[in-house]
């Protein structure tokens, strides 16, 4: 009891510190290879600043008992939704920032740009965890009806922000939210039969959509074809046949060249032969894999795996289900982003714009991940260990 405030997970901190150092080191080696338009940018220094700011945020978050987050959850959700709606309506136009054909940023005078979708990920975890915790406290007698009700509530809060992010368009960001929701549903306490029932219904609906598209020509299938399938098709071809579809496969070809040519041991420090766009952000893994080969790349993946392992550990240890829910949400976030980011650069998944947690340069994203770690550390620090358990 008395050491509850000193129950700090130093292993997790060590992992994050190692990842941070890897990020700074990678940015340092990339610097000479960046296109001329970034000549005036010192990404290394800026990323260092974000890490420092993030550490301060972690410290502040640690001071508050995570149980009290629930009191402000709905407020935060409101702020998050408002931000996303502002982006959707491009209002006020003065602070809307567009890049790579996506309207995903606010531009704050003197501070640079901020990406609400990144910070919203935290809110997403908070709101679902809050819903699940309140629900389970209220409906002690679990029935199919209560399970469905919980599912419906989770969907009600999850789908609107996902839709708003998807239309920015930021497919990657939307999928991260989906992954968070999915991971949390798994631990929500909804019973397997209900879960499989829901899954079955969803699969049938998708089946119907495909059947409509194939068998019934007409406005619906046209809508599906133009709005959905064409986009998917283009990504799909760019993924499977990158050489033949240079428009959508261009980045993949370059990423594969960079990673593949790193081979087992890498080309050595600061040796990069392949130009890959966005090397300092989404494609930072290619820089590591090219310089340090399979050995260096595996080291990074194992580091990430240890991170997840450590978080699972925290989630299991926590004696409050709310804490477990929170950590699970972040596991869903990290696991998906890591898998998607690395997977897309080695042709496991189609390319989607998504940063690699902790390594990619980026203010909003780095702060988001550090805050997530802050909450995980908070949960761990307030986990009571009982000698008899």
């Amino acid at each position, binding site marked *: 009891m008395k050491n509850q405030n000193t129950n700090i997970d130093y292993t997790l901190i060590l992992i994050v510190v190692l990842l941070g150092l890897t990020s700074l080191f990678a940015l340092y080696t990339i610097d000479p290879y960046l296109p001329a338009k970034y000549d005036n940018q010192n990404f290394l220094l800026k990323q260092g600043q974000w890490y420092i700011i993030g550490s301060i945020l972690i410290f502040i978050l640690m001071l508050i008992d995570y149980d009290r987050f629930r009191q402000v959850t709905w407020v935060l959700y409101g702020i998050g939704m408002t931000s996303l709606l502002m982006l959707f309506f491009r209002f006020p136009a003065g602070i809307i920032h567009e890049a790579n054909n996506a309207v995903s940023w606010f531009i704050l005078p003197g501070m640079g740009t901020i990406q609400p979708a990144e910070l919203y990920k935290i809110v997403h975890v908070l709101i679902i965890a809050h819903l699940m915790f309140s629900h389970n406290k209220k409906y002690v007698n679990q029935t199919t009806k209560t399970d469905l009700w919980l599912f419906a509530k989770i969907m009600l809060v999850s789908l609107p922000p996902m839709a708003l992010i998807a239309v920015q368009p930021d497919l990657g960001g939307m999928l991260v939210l989906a992954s968070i929701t999915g991971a949390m549903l798994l631990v929500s306490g909804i019973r397997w039969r209900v879960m499989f029932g829901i899954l079955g219904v969803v699969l049938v609906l998708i089946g119907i959509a495909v059947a409509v598209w194939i068998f019934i020509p007409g406005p619906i299938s046209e809508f599906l074809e133009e709005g959905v399938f064409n986009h998917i098709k283009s990504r799909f071809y760019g993924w499977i046949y990158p050489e033949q579809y240079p428009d959508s496969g261009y980045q993949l070809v370059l990423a*594969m060249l960079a990673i593949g040519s790193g081979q087992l041991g890498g080309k050595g420090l600061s040796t990069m032969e392949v130009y890959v766009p966005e090397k300092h952000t989404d494609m930072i893994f290619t820089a590591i894999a090219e310089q340090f080969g399979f050995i260096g790349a595996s080291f990074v993946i194992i580091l990430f795996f240890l991170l997840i392992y450590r978080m699972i550990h925290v989630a299991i240890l926590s004696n409050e289900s709310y804490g477990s829910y929170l950590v699970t949400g972040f596991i869903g976030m990290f696991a998906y982003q890591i898998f998607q980011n690395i997977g897309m650069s080695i042709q496991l998944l189609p390319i989607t714009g998504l940063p690699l947690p902790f390594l990619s340069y980026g203010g909003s994203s780095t702060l988001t991940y550090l805050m997530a770690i802050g909450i995980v550390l908070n949960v761990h620090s307030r986990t009571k260990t009982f000698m008899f358990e």
Partner: protein
Amino acid sequence: MVDRKKKAKKSQLPFRLNILFFVVFLLFSVLIIQLGVVQILNGQEFQDEIDRTIEDTTKIPVPRGKMYDRHYNVIADNKSLYSITYTPAKGVQAVDRLKVAEDLSKYIKMLSEDDEEKRAKQIKSVSERDRKEYWYLKNEDIAKDRLTEEEAAEMKPAEQYQTMLDRIKDEEIAHYSDEVLEVILIKKELDKAPYLTPHVVKNEDVTPEEYARVAEHLDELPGVNATTDWDRDYPFDSTFRSFIGSITSQDEGIPADKEQFYLTRGYRPNDRVGKSGLEEQYESILRGRKEQVLYTTNKDGKVVDSEVIVEGERGKDLVLAIDMEFQERVDQIVREELETAINEQPYVNRTLEDALAVVLNPNTGELLAVSGQHYDRGEKKTSDAAYKTVYNQYLPGSAIKGATVLAGYESGVITPGQVFIDKPMKFAVGAPKRSWINLGPVNDYQALQKSSNIYMYNIAMRIGGDYHHKDGDNISFTNTTPFEDMRHYFWQFGLGTKTGIDFPYEGTGYVGPSNLRQPGLLLDYAIGQYDTYTTMQLAQYVSTIANDGYRVRPHFLKEVREPTTEEDQLGPVYETIQTDVLNKVVMEQSNLERVQEGFRRAFQDQGGTGYSYWRNKPYQAAGKTGTAESIKQMDDGEWLETINLSLVGYAPFDDPEVAFALIVPHLGEDNDYSINHTMGTRILDAYFEIKEKRQTGNTDQQDATQSSDQDEENN
């Protein structure tokens, strides 16, 4: 109860977390496995791919070979120019080129500043599409917004682009400033450049300041280079130009109809090649060897290293047989004579437009001067039309009688010294045939000296098999191939065949049908009134007679010289063009000498057709005149009867060193100016005058100047 439930719920959490952990473990395992496949199994392939794509060779054009006349005066030269070139790297997009164009427009001006007409033309060359493409690049978002997603989904990318261009409003592109036009003009050039191939953006009127400014800012202008380019320069202007020919501009590139030919020989589509005349004929010698540079490019498309793998070499130089001083004189003579003939009898000679002359060395076939002048009746101006000596064919008249007489000897229908009575021949049908006057009895010498038609008719009749013609009879041939037989002899002199001249095209004359039902045509053939010949063919014919029966190929090229880096110096001889004997006429030497003697008498002995013009000349000339009846259609469609005057000859008789052929087609029937003789004598006068001047001039100067030209000649 409550607690138990809660406990149960809590206890399922670790289990489900373990499932989650297991899923994450699987996903990460897949990552590691796939990473192993990409990096360890296929890693070498990717490395090979990188190594493969980073090296590229660029061929850099070298200056063309020059052309000299036989006395090493430059007649086709290279003028070096400051030049701004653009060599795009792989994967350069339109936006990148626009950026380069915008930057470059700060340093160079494309619009002409002092030539209003040119400036207007340049502004006009910026098409609506050029303006729209520029607007599109500058306002891509707006342009894209004008295309709804539904529309876009139905269109191919090219259609989308076209539609977006179509939707740009006229007023949006109407008021572009000169600065913008500069950018568009530059970008138009940049767009033409194939990747890794230098393309000239501007090489006309590049000022030293522009050159310096661009050179200073090369690092801001990816792909741009400030170099020196060359342009073709012809110091003698129009003289002999129709034979020198011309080369294509960089915009024209290699001619479309010979694209395959050039591409398989290592040319690039924007290479400048000879498109006519000797520039085309000797393209392979003049082109030189391009410098080949191996560029190492990274995947970014940036050139990181360049290495010369094949040293470039300027094209080899051509030394032509032409004597430019003489050529200019001949041009002048032909022009003056043509104008005189027209001015003396403007109405009679209203059909007269051209005068053509070929002068060559009969022993070697070296062409010394080839001249043709054309009088434009609309503009009342004379201009160069030398190509007509090779392209255009005319009825020559009696000039070819030497060939007829030799055909007579060799076919055995006449013997040396054979006499025929020259009086009108009467036939069952048609008008009697006659010589210009009744000459009475003539032998073979006199037949040539006085130009007897009747003599030639008799030869033709006998070749046809009709030995016993009496006045009023029909011509009755027993030989079924009389035309073929006669042409067989004529061809040996080059009359009716290719002369083999080193020029991309030559006419070989009209060959009339061998119609046995009109045997009179064979008689016409015998006096040069049936088949037509080019001036060049006549020149080869008279050379063959002068050269004791050896038919040599007329040629412009005398020797090929290796290129040198020294200015105004000649390189060592690479190849000397040898005299090319195409055939030796299969005729007795003694018979040939009889024809030569007949030619001599025509010029030198009283009664000869050229006697009054040639008798007093210090050089002993021999030759044959010709007058042919021809017709010409006037602009109003009316056909007029005209005459062609021709003349072939050589000098000196004993040891011929110069032969010539001239044709002045379509003089009026009542023309009384013997332009063929005045032209012929003036040309040979000029030839010997220049020769003498050179000989005395050389002795005067020999000590004073030791020019390299003379050294070369002495070699």
